[in-house]
């Protein structure tokens, strides 16, 4: 157990130095420092993957019943999506949200004491895996969209109002790139989110013999789904580009984060991760 504690600590340190060095690289517009930050994050991600696999393979303390594992997995999915965007869009810039968020969530997973969750029996089933996996990846996509959205709004304002493009803005990618990141987050995110919600209901149907129980988490999720569906529709039909979807993804991310932190930790629900 101690060796896992040390490994976890190393991962957190790597993420922290990755996040800090990216920020420094941006401030001093040094490409070298930025490259170093990506390298640090990649090493951290590698160790993190190893950590998750080992914990799962060794089945330490029935890993799937521990809240810590899920939160760590969430941090991991953030970086997975970030590396994907980096590869597809050459959007190294999104490190600015990816690394700090992964750090935050990962340290959060270390901070909560390892408690056993009251998880019902159908655990290892397909539905449960789908439910967790898709929703976590959607969350990570929204986080990227959130970062891209903030950058978009900032740059759009600067160009519109003819402000002096300071050093940081000069190094920023173009509006087009940020909009593409938003597009990906919505186009991939919404179907995944839908699958996540549906698999949850199907699982619930098996477990509790009822689909909708007016659980606060369920209500919040369905509410977010409707907003997401609307955004998805506007994006696909081509009615929205640029500012509006940027703002919407920012809103969606804040809502899902609030739902994750607020409901899963503080409200009595059968999604509770409370220790």
């Amino acid at each position, binding site marked *: 157990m101690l060796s896992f504690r040390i490994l976890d600590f190393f991962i957190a340190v790597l993420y922290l130095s990755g996040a800090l060095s990216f920020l420094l690289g941006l401030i001093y517009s040094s490409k070298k420092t930025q490259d170093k930050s990506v390298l640090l994050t990649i090493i951290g991600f590698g160790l993190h993957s190893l950590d998750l696999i080992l914990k799962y393979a060794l089945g330490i303390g029935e890993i799937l019943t521990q809240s810590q594992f899920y939160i760590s997995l969430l941090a991991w999915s953030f970086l997975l999506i970030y590396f994907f965007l980096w590869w597809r869009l050459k959007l190294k810039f999104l490190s600015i949200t990816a690394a700090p968020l992964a750090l935050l969530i990962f340290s959060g997973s270390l901070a909560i004491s390892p408690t056993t969750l009251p998880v019902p029996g159908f655990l290892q089933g397909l539905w449960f895996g789908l439910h967790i996996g898709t929703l976590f990846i959607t969350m990570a996509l929204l986080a990227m969209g959130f970062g891209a959205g903030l950058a978009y709004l900032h740059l759009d304002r600067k160009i519109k109002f003819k402000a002096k493009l300071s050093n940081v803005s*000069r190094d*920023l*990618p*173009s*509006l*087009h790139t940020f909009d593409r990141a938003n597009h990906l987050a919505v186009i991939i995110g919404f179907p995944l989110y839908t699958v996540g919600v549906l698999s949850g209901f199907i699982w619930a149907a098996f477990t509790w013999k009822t689909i909708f129980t007016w659980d606060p988490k369920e209500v919040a999720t369905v509410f977010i789904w409707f907003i997401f569906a609307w955004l998805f529709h506007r994006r696909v039909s081509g009615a929205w*580009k640029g500012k509006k979807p940027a703002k919407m993804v920012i809103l969606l991310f804040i809502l899902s984060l609030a739902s994750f932190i607020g409901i899963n930790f503080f409200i009595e629900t059968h999604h509770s991760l409370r220790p």
Partner: protein
Amino acid sequence: MEQQIYLFGLSHKTAAIEIREKFALNGFEPLSHGLMEDQGPVQEALVLSTCNRVEILCVSSEVKEAVQDKALTAWAEFCGQDRDTLEKHVYFYSGLEAVKHLFSVAASLDSMVLGEPQILGQLKDAYRKAVQEKTAGVIINRLLHKSFSAAKRIRTETAVSSSAVSISYAAVELAKKIFGELSDQKAMLIGAGEMAELAALHLLNSGLKDIMVANRTPARAQELAQRFNGQAMCMEKMLENLPQADIVISSTGASGIIISAAQVREILKKRKHRPIFFIDIAVPRDIDARVNMLDNVYLYDIDDLKEVVEENLAGRREEAARAAEIVDIEVEKFSDWLRALDLSPTIVDLLNRGEILARRELRKSLRSLGPDVSADTTRVVEQMALSLVRKLYHEPIVFLKRRAREEGSAQKFIDLARRIFNLDDEQVPPDAHQNRKRNNP
């Protein structure tokens, strides 16, 4: 008298274009056009002639008047012009002032467009020519190499050469901020003024492939479209084709607005809200200013662009102050080297260097002899080390003194000695060898 650096010149700061044209020195060769001759006052020379400046750099052991007379006469004669006219406009620097001026020129701090990069290349060409014609000696070689490295240092350490300082280029930079790569974008020129043409050229150079040209006179539209490999149309078809355009450069002579906000709103719908960048360089303006309020539409008029350029230029001027500090430091370094070209400082440096080496080795030897060495042994070893160094350096010093008595060749050997014994503690760049090969074909 020891050698001195002189510089005579005309630039955009002191002479109008008509004068600079008359006194251009393209093809001037110091050896065959009477500037340098055996036993003449000028020992080394370099000539720089561009459209914004004409300069002659000389090294001479004579007083200023003799060199000036020689240089200006040769200059005026080569150009077939009156020497008095030249004298009225020419500026003159000597010694470290000349070094400073040359460093500033190389770093483009004296250019018409501050920080423009061409001048360094022109100076390198001029130097290459001087090396080929064997008019560059010890001092000019060193001076030019130092001016290139100073310019490089200024370019990497300050932002004096960054950011767009022309209106058409600023427009392209903004377009890149909006669209990223321009290769998939389509542009439309409405009206065909000179500035619009320039902006279109810059866009094409930045990767844009597709240009439409709309103009009141079809012949002119046709002509421009052909030049840009684009598509010409009459003005009536402009609105119809506008939804295809991502970048619109408008410069018509129309007396009022030709594209309204309502029209742009319609166009946006047809484009599925893909962004449009309007560049309105017409006065009075062609495009309704309110279109900038629409989402995904960006409008810059001529004043906005001028402001961007002004800001960039102001940024460059701020950087120029920092660059000037670097020039001062580099001039100081050069002046140290120049002073050391005299014999006595070189001898002092050589002996000091030897003593430092001797004492360093002495410390090592004493340490390995252990703590019980007697005072006598220490003294004997010390004397041996020091006298060995003096004896070793004796012959080179005698050689340098003998050369110093012969006129002319002393500096070459002093410079060589300083380099052989590395008295200036220089870091030799790894590509120094290649550089030498290139410069001495």
